[in-house]
């Protein structure tokens, strides 16, 4: 039943910076106090566009616009307008007449379907100015955690939020924190908190962006974590390839230290804590928790067996709580707005058990064959279709969607039939992929799924640390097999052999690099078996990618001799007189595709060599 009055409180980032969450809560609380809860509904909306005068509150159906509304105005607003029907003059706002010259962000699908929690400050603050972060309520969560909550209460709040590890493992962070805290007490050894900023997945840049646009959110999260877990020492392990992120984080730490938010006696609470940045050296495997800790200790980044949990014996044998950048960045808001708010977003009911759902939002890097390449944050439970076609704007160039790869080299490729699947930790895993850290690579009809499997296996072969034989040798053999299939030299039985290798690796490898290496192979075989069989049985590459199986050809009916393709060709394979049909020397063609990119007549095509040979 619709309520009599709707109070729309804007929660665009501009108004939020002005305190609109508190305004909305205060209005709801006042309405309840005055017995109006049945008649009044407070709804949080996207940006209304009147940002300069925020926080904005709109009362419908009266169509009254209020601006600059503060928490202390709530009582007056409810009493005068909602109860007595008299709009509050001093808060009134008249929106400008006429059509806006540009569309509102809330009407642009890329923005409309996103919900910023972790990325709440993006585009709004200067990441190199701590005062900007404080201006948007930065470090108020820390103040609350230090002065109004005990460490146990902080821990409890994080547990009840149900937040699961955003690095891809999806392990409930609160449970991990509690284990680390208890291990520290039980063993009498001080724990340590670590931030995993190694982000090795190809195509993933969520953590880089979070640190680049809001480094203090991670710092504040870690200090709060240190309070809950009981430690003075923290590390951020950041990959070698992120210089800008590292610079900004370094500056953020310096500024926090200057203000006494890191170091001794933080905010006068008696708590000591500081963070050190440790830089990786380019190894994907150092994103794995035990390899990361080995590297942190100054040893070679090699994993170890994990039946001894790092949360009890980790860095230098101390209880170690390792969380991903995005997980840490969520913590200040969980403390400020509460576990209940966090758990109200997402899927499932995590009030009793965090494994029952996926609460909160997730940041994804949307890349590949997609119109709107970028960084997005969406509530858990949104469908892949909405992400790819609404937010992503669909596939460019008139091409057709073929697959979406999630979870990096540990994930799988999902086909069109999976598009209506809701995105959360468990549904993605059940479908044969995984959430992973958030890389989402979209593929179209010009992608070859065999080539994709080969690409990821090649990546993992390079990145394997080599410590355990099943991974080191399993990957090398898988790669050789995959390359043979891609080159048109596959044999019947190769698919079974690959599946066997994959199954062996799943059972026997020491760490997740090896055990999950099977996923790209197995998911492409399961979902795109026809492409595999085309490569093996027919020597064809339907996507037109595998170089040994395709050939470039100039269409005699379309080429008008414009000569545009001649210069870009690195092998000087194209010859011809201007305005006459050009010729392609196949012995010089490297199939790089430079000519196709410049041809405006669509006169150069990829053809299957097997067809060509058959026709000849």
């Amino acid at each position, binding site marked *: 039943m619709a309520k009599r009055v709707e109070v729309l409180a804007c929660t665009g980032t501009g108004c939020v910076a002005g305190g609109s969450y508190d305004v909305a809560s205060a209005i709801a609380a006042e309405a309840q106090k005055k017995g109006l809860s049945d008649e009044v509904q407070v709804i949080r909306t996207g*940006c209304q566009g009147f940002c300069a005068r925020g926080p904005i509150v709109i009362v419908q159906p009266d169509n009254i616009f209020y601006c600059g509304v503060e928490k202390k105005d709530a009582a007056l607003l409810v009493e005068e307008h909602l109860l007595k029907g008299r709009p509050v003059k001093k808060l009134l706002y008249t929106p400008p007449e006429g059509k806006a010259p540009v569309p509102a962000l809330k009407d642009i699908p890329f923005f409309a379907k996103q919900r910023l929690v972790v*990325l709440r400050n993006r585009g709004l603050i200067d990441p190199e100015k701590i005062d*900007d972060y404080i*201006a948007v309520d930065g470090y108020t969560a820390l103040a609350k955690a230090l002065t109004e909550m005990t460490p146990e209460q902080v821990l409890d709040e994080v547990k009840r939020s149900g937040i699961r590890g955003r690095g891809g493992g999806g392990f409930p962070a609160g449970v991990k924190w509690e284990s680390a805290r208890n291990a520290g007490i039980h063993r009498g050894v001080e724990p340590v908190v670590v931030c995993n900023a190694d982000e090795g997945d190809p195509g993933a840049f969520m953590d880089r962006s979070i640190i*680049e*646009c809001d480094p203090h959110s991670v710092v504040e999260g870690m200090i709060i974590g240190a309070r809950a877990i009981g430690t003075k020492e923290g590390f951020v392990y950041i990959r070698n390839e992120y210089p800008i992120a590292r610079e900004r984080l370094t500056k953020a730490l310096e500024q926090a230290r200057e203000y006494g938010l890191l170091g001794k006696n933080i905010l006068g609470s008696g708590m000591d804590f500081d963070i050190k940045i440790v830089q990786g050296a380019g190894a994907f495997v150092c994103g794995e928790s035990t390899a990361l800790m080995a590297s942190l200790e100054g040893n070679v980044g090699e994993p170890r067996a994990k039946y001894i949990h790092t949360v009890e014996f980790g860095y230098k044998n101390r209880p170690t709580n390792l969380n991903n950048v995005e997980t840490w960045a969520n913590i200040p808001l969980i403390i400020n707005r509460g576990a209940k708010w966090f758990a109200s977003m997402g899927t499932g009911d995590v009030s009793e058990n965090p494994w029952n759902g996926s609460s909160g939002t997730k940041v994804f890097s949307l890349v590949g064959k997609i119109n709107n390449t970028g960084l997005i944050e969406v509530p858990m439970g949104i469908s892949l279709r909405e992400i790819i076609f609404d937010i992503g704007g669909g596939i460019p160039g008139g091409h057709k969607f073929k697959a979406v790869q999630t979870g990096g080299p540990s994930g799988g490729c999902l086909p069109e039939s999976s598009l209506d699947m809701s995105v959360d930790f468990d549904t993605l895993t059940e479908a044969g992929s995984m959430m992973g850290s958030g890389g989402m690579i979209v593929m179209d009809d010009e992608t070859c799924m065999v080539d994709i499997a080969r690409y990821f296996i090649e990546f993992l072969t390079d990145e394997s640390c080599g410590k355990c034989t099943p991974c080191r040798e399993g990957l090398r053999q898988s790669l050789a097999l995959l390359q043979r299939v891609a080159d048109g030299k596959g044999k019947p039985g190769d698919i079974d052999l690959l599946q066997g290798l994959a199954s062996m690796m799943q059972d026997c490898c020491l760490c997740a690099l090896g055990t999950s290496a099977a996923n790209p192979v197995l998911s492409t075989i399961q979902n795109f078996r026809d492409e595999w069989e085309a490569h093996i049985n027919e020597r064809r590459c339907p996507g037109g990618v595998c170089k040994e199986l395709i050939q470039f050809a100039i269409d005699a009916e379309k080429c008008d001799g414009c000569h545009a393709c001649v210069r870009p060709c690195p092998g000087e394979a194209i010859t011809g007189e201007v305005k006459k049909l050009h010729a392609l020397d196949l012995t010089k063609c490297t199939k790089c595709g430079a000519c196709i990119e410049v041809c405006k007549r669509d006169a150069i095509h990829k053809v299957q060599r097997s067809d060509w040979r058959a026709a000849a």
Partner: protein
Amino acid sequence: MPRVTIEDLKKIKDKAKQTMTLRSGDARARIIIHMGTCGISAGAREVMSALLKEIETKGTTDVIVTTSGCAGLCSREPMATVEMPDQAPVKYVDLDAGTILKVFREHVMGGKVVADHALGSGWETTG
């Protein structure tokens, strides 16, 4: 400023917010140049330099130029957001050293949004 207390945090917040939200009345506009790795690799530093040079040449003193991280739509970088009092912020895309000057002259100084390069107005939605 040394070692803040909780009261200091509130004071810093109030002061910084005045500038950030153009409430202090001193500034006619705030221009945010988005500088994540995506923006920088697409040329955001050149955009920034061109803008700062223009401001210096024209002797403008009431425009705040600041930087921020990636605005999210990486494929349309370099991007900039123009905030003016009494208006929703406008996000500009596909900028270069030339187009940022157009935006500065026509929108910031002239008051008219440059529709060709404007993506949209307003801010994003939070959870």
